[in-house]
């Protein structure tokens, strides 16, 4: 397990050690098999060559044939060598292969000993073969070879000693002596094999540990490589995300790397002349036009940094395009520890900053003017912080209120505005405006430091930043004391004028009514006179005379009417009187209708004048709040008597 920069190594597992040992042994076995392929072929070829050299032919007189030893070397040698060669090719590293090789090698020893007539020197082939077979580090292989050699010596020593010892007669137990020497060597070879195997196991164990270490190291390297790649990607991304045009120069000023912004700049300028591989110092030296001076300055700066005459170079220059102005800032930083780079050149377009500075200067001048206005205006100007406390007041405030700036700085605006003369409603509105961060427009009665009352028109405004966050409050107070007095006077005069006008109007109306009514009354008078004359001329009185006559003659009306002469005129009289009265009645009806018409006319005149008098009311602007307040004040006594509490909530009236 690894932690930080330390690597803790665990002991390699036995299984892994055994696996490595098996791989190691199989590799050794395979390599030794391949070696024995060569050895077998060499022995085979060597045997045939020796046979052909020593006894190539057998003769019968002048006739020669191939010697039987050549055939023996060719055929028997092939019989001995080919199976192990084929096994070594087909099954390298297998147990059967190395045992067949061991048996073959023993057979080769036997054959060579026989072919050399049992020369004792040839017996060294046995020991050499055992030593070579020990390459397998497998004692069982030595055992196989030993069995073959011992068996060969035993059989031939007993039945054919001349073949193995070179003498026709020998002790039948001499093979034991030879076998004993072989075993003698085997003992040490066994020990060597065991030691080699133990050493191989230790090596494998060490290798397993190293693998463990390597695995951890590789993991660490992989992790570090990934981190390095991430870091490189990160820094490349950072560089690419920067608007500045950045390039890395070597010690001769050649561009070796750039960021994306530099590439875009190069592509935008249709030039590969400032891409990777170009000499940027020469590019700057060769600049002309408006940018010439700035480019030469940049070239000087780069050379001074590369030549270690300065640690940092920074400059600003202008390089305008035909369409728009451009300003740039260039910084050159040494890159001493980099493998290729010598300096980092970063061009940053500062056009916006320069323009902003120009605008800032203009804004500063504007602010100075505004400050001058604020300082010298007759209106009080207060700047409040976000908590509604005074930060700054102008001179007009001191003149107006009598308080010096230090006396009000830091105090809450509500505390400053609060006075016995101030309307609680207005104060509440201001408090709500501060809390809700809304504006306020209103009037408020205030008291100076010396106790004099004065009225101000307050304009409270919220100052926010571009994101809408509250920055400050600005409160402008205008002294409207004189204005209010003037308004009061104007209202008084207005009321008086209105009353006078109303009275004049009423006089006009009365005059008009009287005039119109007078005209109609003339007609009424005429109608009345006519009716009076008609009544005066009426013969209704004759009815009384008739009634008297008839009353006198009531005793004998029939006679009177029929016989009496006077009575005889009565029907005619009634007829004439009836016509006369009917005529009078019609005439009176007509006059009376005219009279009624005139009276209705008078009524209409009066009604119309009343209508005119109503619609001729004087319109004047009235605040609904003031109107409501006035209405409520008219009923204050009733509310107080009935213990009624009135809560006023009115929205701001639209203007």
């Amino acid at each position, binding site marked *: 397990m690894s932690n930080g920069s330390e690597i803790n190594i665990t002991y390699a597992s036995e299984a892994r050690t055994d696996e490595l040992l098996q791989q190691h042994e199989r590799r050794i076995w395979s390599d030794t098999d391949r070696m024995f392929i060569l050895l077998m072929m060499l022995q085979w070829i060597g045997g045939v060559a020796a046979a052909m050299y020593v006894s190539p032919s057998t*003769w*019968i*007189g*002048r006739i020669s044939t191939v010697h039987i030893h050549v055939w023996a070397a060719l055929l028997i040698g092939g019989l001995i060598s080919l199976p192990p060669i084929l096994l070594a090719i087909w099954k390298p590293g297998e147990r059967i292969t190395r045992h067949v090789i061991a048996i073959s090698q023993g057979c080769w020893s036997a054959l060579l000993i026989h072919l050399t007539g049992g020369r004792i020197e040839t017996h060294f082939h046995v020991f050499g073969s055992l030593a070579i077979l020990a390459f397998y580090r497998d004692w069982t292989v030595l055992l196989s070879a030993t069995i073959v050699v011992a068996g060969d010596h035993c059989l031939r020593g007993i039945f*054919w000693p001349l073949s193995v010892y070179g003498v026709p007669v020998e002790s039948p137990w001499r093979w034991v002596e030879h076998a004993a020497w072989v075993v003698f060597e085997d003992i040490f070879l066994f020990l060597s094999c065991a030691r080699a195997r133990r050493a191989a196991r230790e090596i494998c164990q060490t290798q397993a540990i190293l693998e463990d270490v390597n695995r951890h190291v590789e993991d660490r390297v992989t992790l570090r490589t990934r981190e390095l790649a991430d870091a490189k990607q990160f820094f490349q991304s950072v560089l690419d995300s920067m608007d500045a045009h950045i390039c890395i120069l070597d010690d001769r000023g050649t561009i070796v790397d750039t960021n994306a912004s530099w590439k875009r700049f190069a592509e935008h300028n249709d030039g590969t002349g400032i891409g990777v591989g170009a000499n940027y110092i020469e590019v700057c030296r060769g600049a002309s036009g408006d940018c010439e001076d700035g480019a030469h300055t940049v070239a000087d700066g780069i050379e001074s940094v590369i030549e270690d005459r300065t640690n940092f170079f920074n400059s600003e220059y202008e390089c305008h395009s035909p369409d728009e102005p451009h300003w740039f800032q260039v910084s050159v930083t040494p890159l001493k520890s980099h493998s290729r780079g010598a300096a980092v050149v970063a061009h940053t377009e500062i056009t916006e900053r320069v323009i902003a500075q120009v605008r800032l200067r203009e804004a500063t001048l504007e602010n100075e003017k505004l400050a001058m206005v604020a300082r010298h205006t007759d209106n009080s100007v207060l700047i409040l912080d976000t908590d509604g406390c005074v930060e700054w007041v102008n001179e007009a405030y001191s003149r107006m209120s009598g308080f010096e700036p230090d006396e009000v700085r830091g105090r809450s605006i509500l505390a400053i505005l609060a006075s016995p003369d101030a309307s609680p409603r207005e104060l509440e509105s201001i408090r709500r405006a501060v809390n809700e961060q809304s504006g306020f427009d209103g009037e408020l009665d205030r008291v100076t430091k010396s106790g004099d009352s004065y009225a101000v028109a307050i304009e409270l405004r919220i100052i926010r930043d571009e994101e809408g966050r509250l920055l400050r409050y600005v409160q402008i107070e205008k002294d409207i004391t004189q204005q209010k007095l003037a308004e009061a006077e104007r209202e008084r005069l207005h009321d008086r004028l209105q009353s006078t006008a109303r009275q004049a109007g009423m006089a006009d109306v009365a005059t008009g009514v009287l005039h119109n009514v007078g005209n109609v009354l003339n007609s009424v008078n005429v109608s009345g006179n006519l009716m009076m004359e008609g009544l005066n001329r009426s013969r209704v009185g004759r009815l009384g005379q008739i009634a008297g006559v008839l009353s006198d003659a009531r005793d004998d009306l029939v006679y009177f009417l029929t016989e009496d002469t006077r009575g005889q005129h009565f029907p005619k009289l009634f007829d004439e009187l009836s016509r006369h009265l009917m005529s009078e009645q019609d005439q009176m009806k007509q006059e009376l209708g005219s009279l009624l018409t005139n009276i209705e006319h008078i009524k209409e005149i009066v009604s119309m004048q009343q209508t005119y008098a109503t619609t001729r009311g004087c319109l004047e602007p009235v605040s609904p709040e003031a109107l409501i307040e006035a209405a409520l004040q008219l009923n204050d006594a009733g509310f107080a008597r009935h213990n009624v509490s009135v809560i006023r909530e009115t929205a701001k009236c639209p203007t």
Partner: protein
Amino acid sequence: MIWLVLLLVSGGFLWHYSTAPGAVGAPVTKAPAGMDVDTHFRLVMFLHPHCSCSRSSVGNLNHILQTLPADSDVDVDLYFFRPETVPADWHETTLWTEARRIPGAVCHVDPDGRRTTEFGVATSGHVLLFAPGGARVFSGGITSGRGHDGENPGGESLSRLLCGLESAFESRLAIEQNSFAVYGCEIVSTADDENRKTQ
């Protein structure tokens, strides 16, 4: 297993070949006429110059002669077979060179194997020893096998005869028991022998 059996069979074949002696022929029992054997032993060896097995015979002969006492009186003649139809240096092989190095030995070219035939010998490496007076006291090979150097019954018997340690009787008895087999090439083929006889 088949492989092991084949190996054993091959070993048996080699054993059979190595232990198979050459033809003994009909060696003469007395020195032919004209051979100087009056006062001293005469040893005659017949060789095929190209017989590789005969190197052991020449070597063993050299060893025997080297071990003889200084006063030993023996003449040594080595006859090298050479057919008449072959180049003149056909017989000058390594075996010829080694034979000429034997002190006191006289190498002769045996044209067409006439002397070989005359002495009744058939196999290269065959040694005949004639005692003073012409009696043959030894006949056979002086190797224990094909190409085998070192001690062998024939060589030991020959050495003892020359040193006077063994009697002719004992040697003749051994010869009759075929104890001194000759291992080498056949010097004169039967066909050549019949041709020569025909001629």
